[in-house]
């Protein structure tokens, strides 16, 4: 398993798309935060705005599935799907005599870390640097750090569920383009579900899904029960979707 994880890191480090994404996100994130901190761009009604952390408003964009999906699905398309087609290098991995379950888990682990780094860590670091550079570092007091730690800890857990979905999608589609298109469609469906009135049972399902939690975890105050519920939703979703992925990958015929 260690070898497989090392292989995945080796491949990710040499993945052109990953470096392009890192560069793009650093650029966009820096510009975005700069415009917001200098009040050139006013964003309102974000979870950060309501608790007087308006300097961090730019982070909101990176917590919306319809936006961060573009990052995650691009990484999945050019890091995971291309291994099936056109390069077909997944064949070498299967023939190498490693268990398919382990291959899948190694991919999930490294893909998730890569996605977390690009989608969560880079925007957080850039905003922190800019806030400090603009002399507003005092907003990172103990209370706010606890809030950010709790919110981003829970967000990352839900995010793992999302990367598990995108990995599953990329394994099913076998194709970079299809991975991106289907993930966008999927995210749009979830977005529409969020906005539209829906039957009661769908409401219950939605409110107990990671998509609802993406917003919930940024509430300034959460009860212990809400935190536990959020942890359970993130963890259970990740485990179930990963098990589905392993099941499918173990039965997948490689062309």
């Amino acid at each position, binding site marked *: 398993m260690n*070898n*497989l994880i*090392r*292989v995945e890191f*080796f*491949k990710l480090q*040499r*993945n*052109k798309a990953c470096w392009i994404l890192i560069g793009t996100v650093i650029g966009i994130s820096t510009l975005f935060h700069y415009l917001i901190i200098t009040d050139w761009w006013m964003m309102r009604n974000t979870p950060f705005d309501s608790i007087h952390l308006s300097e961090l408003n730019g982070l909101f964009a990176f917590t919306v599935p319809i936006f961060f999906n573009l990052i995650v699905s691009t990484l999945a398309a050019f890091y995971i799907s291309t291994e099936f087609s056109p*390069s*077909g*290098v*997944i*064949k*070498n*991995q*299967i*023939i*190498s*005599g*490693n*268990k398919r379950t382990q291959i899948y888990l190694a991919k999930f682990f490294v893909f998730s870390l890569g996605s977390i780094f690009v989608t969560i860590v880079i925007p957080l670091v850039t905003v922190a640097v800019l806030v400090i550079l603009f002399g507003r570092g005092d907003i990172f007091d103990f209370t706010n750090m606890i809030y950010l730690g709790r919110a981003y800890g829970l967000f990352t857990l839900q995010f793992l569920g999302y990367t598990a979905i995108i990995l599953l999608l990329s394994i099913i589609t076998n194709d970079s383009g299809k991975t991106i298109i289907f993930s966008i469609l999927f995210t749009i469906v979830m977005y529409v579900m969020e906005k539209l009135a829906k039957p009661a049972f769908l409401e219950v399902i939605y409110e107990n899904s990671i998509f609802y939690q993406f917003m919930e975890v940024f509430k300034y105050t959460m009860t212990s029960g809400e935190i536990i519920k959020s942890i359970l939703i993130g963890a259970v979703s990740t485990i179930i979707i990963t098990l589905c992925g392993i099941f499918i990958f173990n*039965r997948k*015929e*490689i062309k």
Partner: protein
Amino acid sequence: MSDIILRTNKLTKKYKNDVALENVNITIEKGAIYGFIGQNGAGKSTLLRLVTGLAFPTSGSIELFGNDHPNELTESQKRIGAIIENPALFPDMSAYENLAVHRLQKGIPGKESIQKTLDLVGLANTGKKKTKNFSLGMKQRLGLGIALLSDPEFLILDEPTNGLDPTGIVELRELIKKLNREKGLTVLISSHILSELHQLATSYGIIHKGELLEELTSKQLDEKCRQHLQIKVDQPSKAAIVLEDTLSTTDFEVMPDGTIKLYSYLDDVRAVSSALTMKGLLIEHLSQNGDSLESYFSKLIGGQGHE
């Protein structure tokens, strides 16, 4: 300890409307170079994909190094090196990096094995050149390098000469022979370039439309393809005596249907016919026969030719 590297038992692979393999039983002994012959679409790659775990059989079983349990099979695959269909490479990586990925995923200790393999397949001087800029022949050689990196006991090659120039084909043949001779490497090689296989294989399996038509050693094949005079006379036993006494040869066989296969006097058919007629035998048929591997294969699959 079993000397059988690969054995399949009634291996069958069906797709929705298509039977790719049906009840295929092949046996490959340790140290053999097994030539797997068949037209495009005959089922060669399907069998190789089943053996390497890329696809799953509909029924039947695969025994690899004496193991046939699914978990043991995965473990046994560590002792295999393979190229299936075309070499699978990372286009944005160099030859060295491609081998480095494979070294890590196979858990091969020591980076020196990478340089050794690059030397072996003649790609030591490719430096940082990305494989997307490689010629087909270079890709094929790198694919072979990946297959050989872990020093496998069993090498599976699917159409390995695709894209190789004549020199490359000769080099590949010599390399396989050398590895087979010096390291006892067992090789399963599928190809439709039969003349190539004929110079390499020690045994053959002939597949057509998903069915294994015949399995034979190179000796048996040479015997079948050997040039001979085919003689049909009214009294085969008397003809045998004439061949022995008059032509002083025992290099012939009397077949169950009474036909005689004479392996000498190929350049002197007249001497044979006059010896037989002078002894009062009626010659019903006399012709020079014998197959090349190509024509033998064509006959076996029903004269449909091959690609």
